[in-house]
């Protein structure tokens, strides 16, 4: 088949659009989404994180997060030697704009992205006086913005510092795991933009999800396991100094 230059110029953009569509996946229509078929979590391979802050920026854009507040952020840890209990940590503006150059003093540096752990036994939902925050049947901790009193008890109860009070709405706010996206078959904004694949959305109820193979074959941890919150953000490569 002979293709003229003119035809090629028309076909290339069309092919690019088609390829982008394939990469993005076919969005599942929301009405067909069955909550009980899913149990969402996330895999965080911190050996891959480069601290670029793309995830923080994407989250803020996608979810209209006010400046100074964070649904997700990135921390940089610096551990010099054996005193792993006292690391030096920084997170300038939540790591949104990346990080300044680290000190060259022989220690190790690494990045730890954080977000709501969507705990199955979440302390924040336990304390809400009106049940405005809840664990959805698909395992996402959500806040009903039209019902929240703004008492801030949930903010106090979250051990990971993932909640804040939105100054515009005066209600509790947090990561929704981009619920508006994942229920349409898309991934979260932070996973979407992560250039290294550090973050991977995981459906723990889907037997074909690659997370199962990963969890079976790798050493993973959750944050603050002693608090028994049944966190569903699994960290690979987590250092003992991380809080």
């Amino acid at each position: 088949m002979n293709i003229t230059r003119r035809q090629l110029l028309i076909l290339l953009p069309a092919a690019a659009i088609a390829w982008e569509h394939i990469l993005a996946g076919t969005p599942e229509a929301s009405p067909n989404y069955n909550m009980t078929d899913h149990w969402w979590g996330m895999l965080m391979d911190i050996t891959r994180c480069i601290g670029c802050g793309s995830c923080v920026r994407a989250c803020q854009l996608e979810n209209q997060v006010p400046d100074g507040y964070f649904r997700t952020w990135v921390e940089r840890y610096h551990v010099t030697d054996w005193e792993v209990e006292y690391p030096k940590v920084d997170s300038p503006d939540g790591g949104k704009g990346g990080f300044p150059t680290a000190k060259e003093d022989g220690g190790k540096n690494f990045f730890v992205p954080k977000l709501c752990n969507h705990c199955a036994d979440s302390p924040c939902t336990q304390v809400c006086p009106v049940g405005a925050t809840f664990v959805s049947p698909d395992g996402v901790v959500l806040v009903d913005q039209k019902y929240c009193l703004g008492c801030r008890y949930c903010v106090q109860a979250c051990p990971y510092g993932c909640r804040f009070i939105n100054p515009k709405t005066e209600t509790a706010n947090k990561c929704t795991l981009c619920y508006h996206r994942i229920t349409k078959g898309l991934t979260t904004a932070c996973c979407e933009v992560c250039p290294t694949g550090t973050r991977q959305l995981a459906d723990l109820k889907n037997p074909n999800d690659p997370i199962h193979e990963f969890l079976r074959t790798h050493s993973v941890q959750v944050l603050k396991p002693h608090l028994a919150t049944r966190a569903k953000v699994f960290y690979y490569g987590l250092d003992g100094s991380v809080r």
Partner: protein
Amino acid sequence: MQIPVEGFMYPNEVELQWSVLIVLYPFLTGLVAGAFILASLERVFQVEAVKPTYRLALLTALAFLMVAPLPLQLHLGHPERSFEMYLTPHGSSAMAMFGFVYLWYLLGVLVLEIWLDYRRDIVVMSQSNTGWKRLFYRALTLGSNNISERSLHIDERVGWLITVIGIPSAFLLHGYVGFIFGSIKANPWWSSPLMPVVFIFSAMVSGIAIVMLLYMLMCWLRREAIDMRCVDTVAKYLFYTFIIDFSLEMLDLIHRIYEADESFRSLDFMVHTRLYLSQVVIQIFLGTVAPIGLLALTQVLKLTDLRRKRIYVIAGCLTLIGIFAMRWNVVIGGQLFSKSFLGYTTYKMGFVAREGLLTAIVLTILPFVILWVLLKLLPPWPEKHSVATSAAASAD
């Protein structure tokens, strides 16, 4: 407004969530519970010596209880939705019970007990007054003008029963406030099974202290002699309760120091720096050790009435300052350190703001204004009582 941070805080932790108004809330409910428990001494435990403070204690409890929910309402992001706590309370939330515990204590215990105790006086005043006062007291009688011996005897029995129910209710009211803090496992400064017990005893301490001070103030304002037997007894109870409270707090402190868990280094640093003035100086030494020492003096030395009175006034004021500092250190202190245990933030209190200092001052003064009105409407003084009783007798 830039908030100074030392070390590392999770980014959402920098701003404090619970302000001075939340400090005020346990302080006010503590006064309520303590005042009620003092009143119950006379009613249930037959401690006749404290009788002159009985009605004053009940009215004080009511005045403070009426103001107690205001700091919470002012603090809520959506106060208009607070009624949802009654309609759809969340079973697993300690805070969800607030509305029910509050309403039970206000209407099921305090108002009912005051009404029963004053019923005879109310009926008498509804007959002896004219104009709006007559209408007001007539409304308060709730249509029952029966003040026969038998009727008053029933009032007395029912009042006694309510007080008996009221004692665990007072414990519930304040123990529950302690539980709100003590059950937060994310926060090691709060998370302790001792917290509700410490809150109950500190409540008793503050409630006894304020009733003692108010009684002495009322006597001074009314140019009456202070019943020293009464004040000595109240001070003795204050002393004993304070020792239990202090012992519990020290037990908590020693346990933390000895156990020295992962949070200890961070909390210890906070106590030695940001909380040094409010915790070590004001709460422990000025607000606890000093009043306990002063009260101990009155127990072991034979002092003149005047000296004892002076000591009681100083010890009472120091006690209230100490208990307020304790509430401050619990509420504010529990938010100054990061849950990562790697840093500290600062509490910036505004002056003219919804949750500012001015609001806190107004809310602190308001119960005294309400108490003044209550004292005018329902005078607890024995001589007025006797005048009213004689008026009733003549009316009969």
